[in-house]
């Protein structure tokens, strides 16, 4: 019976001692939100300030209030925070002064879990990360592990991979259109988007056996070849999808209310976006033609014909238009992939338990939210020594505090929806 001693506490390098705590508390002018004695609150505007000293300059800045300001807690249970995300919003009236995103409500420690899973099972753990782009979540580790193990997937497997990730991109971008409208109060577009999504996930479940967490990729290939059911559903969907997208476009694109709320709202310049690490459609909407599929072709993207789409505005409306353009581009890519798909096996010969040689590998894909990359280190054992995932929505979220000050509370949701974060990915 192996028994381990209780976990030894690792001391925190910036842990504060009591005197320092008192000094900081006094410096920030903080009083406890709920005094120890007596049941009275300190005041209405004080609700929301944590009852502990600020740990950093930035935290002190956010949580110290000037005259006329108050903190609003948006989330973790709020109708439109796209999951369990919390935004501490400092407002003056309805004008936002500052925003502090507080993360971690969905943190599952997937990186640590993956360090304890074999290379094959890692691909099941990454699925629920960014739950709207599950195929991409599996693609990057598959690429990294294939590099580590030194094998290549067969060509047909690569084509099937490209096919399913583009399908995934179509419904993910389609949902973004719907959510953007929903966060502005439009009820209908999201349901039209879900019609499209349902058709795609039915199709993907025909090929992979699952509707949401597909678990379709394998190291050295994919789980299954295409079957008739998948292809017939693909044909049906292909004949309808443009009509569905057009239906949504009729609802949103020209709508004057929508345009007046998104044009010029949340403008990111290209330099700003690069500095903030924003990638994907959000970056391309700011005019930077960075697309991993072109910049660093992985899979079969160097064999396909497509151009990187950019928009110049950098505002919420450009980000929306960028998504629509990319949906159409993805449909175009799907057509090409179907045309060019070769015959052959879909899975390379790989042992049950993979033990790559010690080494490091980096696999990056263009997920619907941007650069999704995996850095895997092998020490020769059956499990990765270190498995790191860079999720694009996690990084893109940093743009929110830069974009929002001076805007209204109502714009928070509109700008956030245009950045399209998914909390499963943000919180790993």
């Amino acid at each position, binding site marked *: *019976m192996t028994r381990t001693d209780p976990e030894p506490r690792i001391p925190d390098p910036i842990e504060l001692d009591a005197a320092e705590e008192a000094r900081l508390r006094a410096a920030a002018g903080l009083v406890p939100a709920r005094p120890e004695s007596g049941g009275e609150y300190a005041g209405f505007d004080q609700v929301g300030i944590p009852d502990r000293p600020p740990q950093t300059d930035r935290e002190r800045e956010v949580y110290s209030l000037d005259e006329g300001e108050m903190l609003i807690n948006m989330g973790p249970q709020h109708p439109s925070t796209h999951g369990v995300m919390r935004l501490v919003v400092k407002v003056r009236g309805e004008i936002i002064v500052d925003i502090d995103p507080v993360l971690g409500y969905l943190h599952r420690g997937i990186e640590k879990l993956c360090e304890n899973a074999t290379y094959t099972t890692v691909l099941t753990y990454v699925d629920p990360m960014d739950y709207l782009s599950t195929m991409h979540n599996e693609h990057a580790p598959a690429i990294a592990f294939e590099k580590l193990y030194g094998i290549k997937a067969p060509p047909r497997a690569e084509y099937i991979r490209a096919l399913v990730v583009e399908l995934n991109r179509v419904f993910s971008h389609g949902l973004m259109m719907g959510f953007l409208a929903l966060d502005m109060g439009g009820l209908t577009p999201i349901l039209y988007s879900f019609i499209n999504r349902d058709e795609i996930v039915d199709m993907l*479940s025909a090929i992979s056996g*699952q509707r949401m967490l597909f678990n379709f990729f394998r190291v050295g290939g994919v789980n299954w070849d295409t079957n008739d059911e998948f292809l017939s559903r693909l044909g049906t969907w292909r004949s309808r999808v443009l009509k569905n997208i057009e239906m949504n476009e*009729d*609802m949103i694109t020209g*709508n004057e209310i*929508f*345009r007046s709320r998104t044009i010029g709202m949340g403008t990111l310049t290209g330099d700003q976006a690069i500095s903030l690490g924003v990638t994907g459609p959000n970056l391309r909407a700011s005019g930077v033609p960075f697309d991993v599929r072109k910049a660093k072709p992985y899979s079969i993207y160097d064999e396909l014909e497509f151009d990187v789409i950019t928009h110049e505005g950098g505002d919420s409306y450009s980000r929306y238009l960028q998504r629509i353009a990319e949906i159409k581009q993805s449909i175009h890519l799907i057509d090409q992939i179907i045309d060019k798909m070769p015959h052959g096996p879909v899975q390379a010969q790989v042992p049950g338990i993979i033990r790559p040689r010690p080494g490091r590998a980096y696999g990056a894909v263009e997920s619907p939210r941007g650069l999704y990359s995996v850095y895997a280190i092998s020490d020769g054992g059956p499990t990765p020594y270190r498995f790191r995932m860079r999720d694009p929505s996690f990084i893109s979220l940093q743009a929110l505090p830069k974009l929002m000050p001076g805007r209204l509370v109502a714009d928070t949701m509109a700008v956030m929806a245009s950045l399209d974060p998914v909390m499963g990915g943000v919180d790993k």
Partner: protein
Amino acid sequence: MAFPGIGIARGLATTFRNFFAPKVTRQYPEQRPEIPDRWRGRLDLIYDPFGEHKCEVCFQCAQVCPVEAIDMSGFDSQGNRIRYGMPEIYDERKDPNAYRRAGLAARPMRNPARWDEEVDAPWVDETIDGFGGRPESLVAIFRATQGRYGYLPEQALRRISDRLSIHWAQVFGAAGLGGFRLLPADGHVVTVCDCTSCRFAGGPAVLAAIREELGIGPGEETPDGAFSLEVGTDVGAGTISPAIRIDTLVYGPVDADQARHIVSERRRSAVSAGSGS
């Protein structure tokens, strides 16, 4: 945008058109979705070519599941209904055999002195070494241990698990599947099923017959300590009603006469075995 209001008008036209369009809602219980051939959303056990379940209800998967998502039930090799799950949720887990298989401290039911029986550790080690200390000889070791103790004491199993470096969940699983006795042999528990289907199928008559035969009521013990009577709801799983169980053996469907006969037979054999030893 040429003229203000065009965009809104197009949106209104779209919704108005869709007001009359065919709807996409699936009326779930009436309209079943088309399940793809490769669907693996439903947990199902794998069958062998003869149509039998490949699962042998050894609980090893359930015990090693890190998030304790597996909750399973079935019949072990002795026809004993067993279930793995949170013991505080399922009353059925009161069966000590299942307790021990689940890796829990067995709940002493009868003869508590023998539950935590000290085993002769050097003897067990010797036995294990005698079989070469190899995991392949697990069944032989079990057989030898049962030969000495009449059943497999928990401590002996733990010893075997340690010495052979087999996860003890696997040791218990193997012991249960191999038909070994995990309970002390003396003192029989007669359980009469009291589930709904058994009650309808004549369970009360069976219970009355056994009461008459043994001369004790539910929850009581015969004066010589050889039998006790209990009422449970988990004996036959509703499929072999009415059912009775003696220790781990399930009989059913039985009528009152058969039940009386079974118990009296068992009593006679117990008495003769007791006199023989």
